[in-house]
């Protein structure tokens, strides 16, 4: 979705302000909030992609006003309710008012190691890769209203396939509970000037990790340009 989370290239957010000797957490609730979120993903209540979509679906004014873990807490509440794992009256009461829904497993000490390493998202290839290293590709001009990992700044821009990263779970599908739909993943390299215009620092290049459905050969003329040429 074209949400506030897609921040690459936006202006006006000011300087980056590193904190010296930053603690791992700034308050105890942040640690509990992170742990609860990771726990629910670890026991299979939802996927990492639904998790990310849950943050993106927060209203933009809430997204900007809340701290990082503040957003995580709101996302946790909304996904728990959406998945029918608890109800809003129980959150308000601060206690369970009904029995829990059966889940594959409970989050206990044995599951902890799984929360500390990323899962494996590589999958066997369903078909040969469409692109090879060195191919010129255009990121498609798509605007799905649901979760996607193609950032806005790359859409419509031409880059070069730099590496193939194997076949991976497709977040756009997984976030909708529509299956893993594994897709080839590529590192696509763009010149800074292709993304940001002629006045851009000529030493800049930017890469994205792009799933195959996001890409088309650069030789394909985008629809709106061919239309404008043939009125």
């Amino acid at each position, binding site marked *: 979705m074209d949400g506030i989370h897609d921040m690459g290239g936006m202006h006006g957010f000011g*300087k*980056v302000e590193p904190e010296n000797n930053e603690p791992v957490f*700034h308050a105890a609730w942040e640690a509990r909030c992170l742990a609860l979120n990771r726990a629910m993903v670890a026991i299979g209540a939802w996927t990492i992609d639904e998790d990310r979509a849950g943050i993106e679906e927060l209203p933009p004014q809430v997204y900007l006003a809340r701290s990082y873990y503040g957003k995580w807490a709101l996302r946790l509440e909304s996904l728990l309710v959406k998945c029918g794992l*608890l109800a809003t009256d129980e959150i308000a009461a601060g206690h369970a008012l009904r029995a829990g829904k059966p889940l594959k497993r409970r*989050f206990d000490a044995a599951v902890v190691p799984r929360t500390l*390493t990323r899962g494996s998202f590589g999958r066997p290839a369903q078909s040969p890769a469409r692109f090879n290293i060195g191919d010129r590709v255009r990121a498609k001009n798509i605007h799905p209203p649901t979760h996607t990992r193609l*950032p806005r700044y790359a859409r419509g821009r031409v880059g070069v396939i730099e590496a193939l990263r*194997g076949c991976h779970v497709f977040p756009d599908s997984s976030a909708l509970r529509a299956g893993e739909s594994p897709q080839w993943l590529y590192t696509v390299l763009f010149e800074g000037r292709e993304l940001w215009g002629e006045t851009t620092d000529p030493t800049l290049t930017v890469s994205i*990790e792009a799933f195959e459905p996001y890409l088309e050969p650069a030789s394909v003329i985008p629809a709106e340009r061919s239309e404008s040429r043939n009125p």
Partner: protein
Amino acid sequence: MAHDHDHNDDGEHGSELSEMQLRVRALETVLAEKGYIDPAALDLMIETIETKIGPHNGARVVAKAWTDSAFKQTLIEDATKAVQALGLINRVGDHLIAVENTPKLHNMIVCTLCSCYPWEVLGLPPVWYKSAPYRSRAVNDPRGVLADFGVKLPAHTQIRVWDSTAETRFIVLPMRPAGTEGWSEDQLAALVTRDCMIGTGLPKGPKDIA
């Protein structure tokens, strides 16, 4: 509504703090009562995050690469395999990629869409990495971002920004500082900062730790 007066109040986010303490506590209670989670397992997860993972692991990887050319080659070819073989951490996530700085090329890592970060080698991301200023500017003004960190690179250095838009994760292999010939891995690891493995900093030099 009664406000909690824990000693965590940091002023700046005071109102969110007390609200969030209550909300998160309520969620944890409900989830435990429903039988979904064991709160003691949350304690264990948090303790592990606070004590076992962190940039000290990444620093070992970099120091090893600076002293062992065979290891460095494996690291560049398959960082997951190389780091797993070091045995620093329980299990390395798949698709870890090490990118090497050279006199001509400087790498920088960002996640413009959320907060993707190589936990297993660097721990949890710092607040600035997850912030709007970094996520918005890293891809179109990396030299400006570097200036915010007090880093200035030669005008001719190529800057390569890696946007972590999938489950691949990146760690920067910085250049070994001059004047460290003959240093041990332990000595070298002390020069490796978290930021130099993200690409927003450079390693310390021998004078910085003298």
